[in-house]
């Protein structure tokens, strides 16, 4: 297993560098931030100064080297917009995103497993059709729509929850998480249902029944673990989306997460912050992918063997 981890880490290094360089070059294609940060009257000299001060005058290759060198020493430079250290800004925003992502995923996974298995247990029953319909709908409604409607219903009309923000205690989590959870829940429920339907018709389930295993045992014991792998894959993809930042939800609810920071720094051409954010998310995504691979291995001994081979 450790050998596997080491190999994974090494093979992940190249893509990581590719992502960093990609962000670096792409970001610079979006234009010079001078207009945003210089007064309208800026003279050519002032522009020149600005460009030099921010190292934008060097050849792109020199900039790249500086940047990569900075990454190695964990120095990402300062934000153009706020003047703060880019790394500090990214690190401050990231926990908020992670909290949101983890709580969302937890609810989505638990919900999907319960609903999906229940629906798969009796395919095409009324319960199955209702839950399928709801999960399909959930997967296809724009999240900002839910967010705004939710704010007006639950915060303003009913007054049960705060509209937004992070300071209202647990209650302030409800709307953002509920908004975020809807789509993953819908998607995952469908995946779990599909995987469970095929797991439930596998020969080992029939074997379990021949031993007198009851419905609950068949579902929770025999089918679920076999159905877990595809769900894990999809959950991983959804989690990647959440780690990359739930821009819309963070924007609407004033959640100080990395998605909002990233979009702000894209719009503000704040390259240093953008790069710091991307490095952070990219590293966590690679870690996540490794965790998922470990998950596969824990679920299934055959994978475990392949992994250690």
């Amino acid at each position, binding site marked *: 297993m450790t050998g596997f981890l080491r190999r994974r880490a090494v093979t992940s290094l190249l893509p990581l560098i590719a992502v960093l360089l990609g962000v670096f070059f792409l970001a610079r294609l979006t234009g010079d931030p001078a207009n945003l940060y210089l007064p309208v009257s800026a003279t050519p000299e002032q522009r020149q100064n600005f460009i030099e001060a921010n190292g934008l005058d060097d050849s792109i290759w020199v900039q790249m080297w500086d940047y990569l060198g900075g990454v190695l020493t964990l120095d990402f430079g300062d934000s153009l917009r706020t003047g703060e250290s880019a790394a500090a800004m990214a690190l401050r925003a990231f926990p908020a995103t992670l909290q949101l992502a983890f709580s969302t995923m937890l609810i989505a996974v638990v919900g999907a497993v319960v609903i999906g298995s229940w629906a798969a247990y009796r395919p*095409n029953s009324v319960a199955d059709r209702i839950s399928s319909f709801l999960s399909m709908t959930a997967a296809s409604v*724009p999240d900002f729509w839910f967010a705004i409607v939710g704010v007006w219903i639950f915060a303003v009309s009913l007054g049960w929850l705060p509209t937004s923000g992070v300071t209202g205690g647990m209650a302030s989590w409800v709307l953002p998480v509920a908004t975020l959870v809807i789509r993953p829940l819908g998607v995952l429920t469908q995946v779990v249902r599909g995987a469970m339907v095929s797991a439930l018709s596998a020969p080992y389930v029939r074997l379990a029944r021949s031993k007198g295993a009851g419905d609950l045992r068949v579902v929770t014991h025999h089918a679920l673990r076999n159905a877990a792998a595809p769900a894990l894959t999809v959950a991983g993809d959804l989690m990647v989306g959440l780690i990359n930042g739930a821009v819309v939800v963070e924007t609407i609810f004033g959640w100080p997460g990395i998605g909002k920071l990233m979009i702000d720094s894209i719009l503000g051409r704040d390259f240093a912050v953008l790069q710091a954010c991307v490095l952070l998310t990219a590293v966590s995504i690679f870690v996540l992918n490794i965790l998922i691979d470990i998950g596969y291995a824990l679920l299934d001994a055959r994978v475990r063997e392949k992994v250690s081979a």
Partner: protein
Amino acid sequence: MSATLETPLEAPRSQNPKLLTLLLKDKVATLAALVLCFVFLTAVFGPMLVAEQAREQNLLNANAEPFTLDGGWLNFLGTDPLGRSVLARLIVASRTTLSVAVPAVLLSLVIGSLIGMWAGYHRGRRETVVMRIADIILSFPSLLMAVVVLYIFSPSSANLVLVLAITRIPIYLRTARAESAELQSRLFVDAARTFGTKPTAIIFRHVLPIILPTLLTVATLDFCFVMLSESSLSFLGIGIQPPSVSWGLMVAQGRTYLQTAWWLSFFPGLAIVITTVSATVLASWARLATDPAQRWRLTLPRHKRGRKEVK
């Protein structure tokens, strides 16, 4: 030859009912197919009929309420802040929406699955390289990609398609690779190899048909995802540009009016939901219908399909 025996020559029995017959037996799937046909026809022909009305502004009749015929049937779903018919705009938007979502999904589906199947079939280094590329795209913030491409090349439908397609390729790539890697070790693939069949032919003959239903299911989920992404891009102002109109754009623009004119974003949202739900229903039906091992489920009376045991 003496070893074989006379078998009475009989007329071939139709073992495999036509897909259409099978479809008609499933009311829900039929409905879904009808809805999709309707959406498709609307997208093709609708704009010819109401393009003018969708453009026609009437600031004096802005944000008119829906469900009255006072403003003519075109205003039955209300009007937008410029007094344009929401219904006419929905119809015109259907074409833009589909002409972004369908090509984006198809493009990523085709590219992703072809590369994925190729990598999975051949395994080894090719597989590793392809997977790492997928990792790169996946961990790349898609929004950044969108902003950059749309910044440099202007936010036209074609560029939107490009961006959405690229960011979704890894999904198909990974699915196709995993399944193809598993399938290439199957015996019937070995059998095909013993006939001297070329890898490409094997991929198309044995791998593709088996993973296609899975890919299609992923694609319908993605169809929805792409429409929502397009909407999110509009939310950020870099999606479809007016006066072109898409459902995503309508939802995004209408969201600010949710309290004062809910119909502006509700109807396009509903259109997205209905379309994707229909697509999903039809895809899961197709998944059963094209799988000879599962097809029987569709032919049973509904209540029996799920039974696992005999009572």
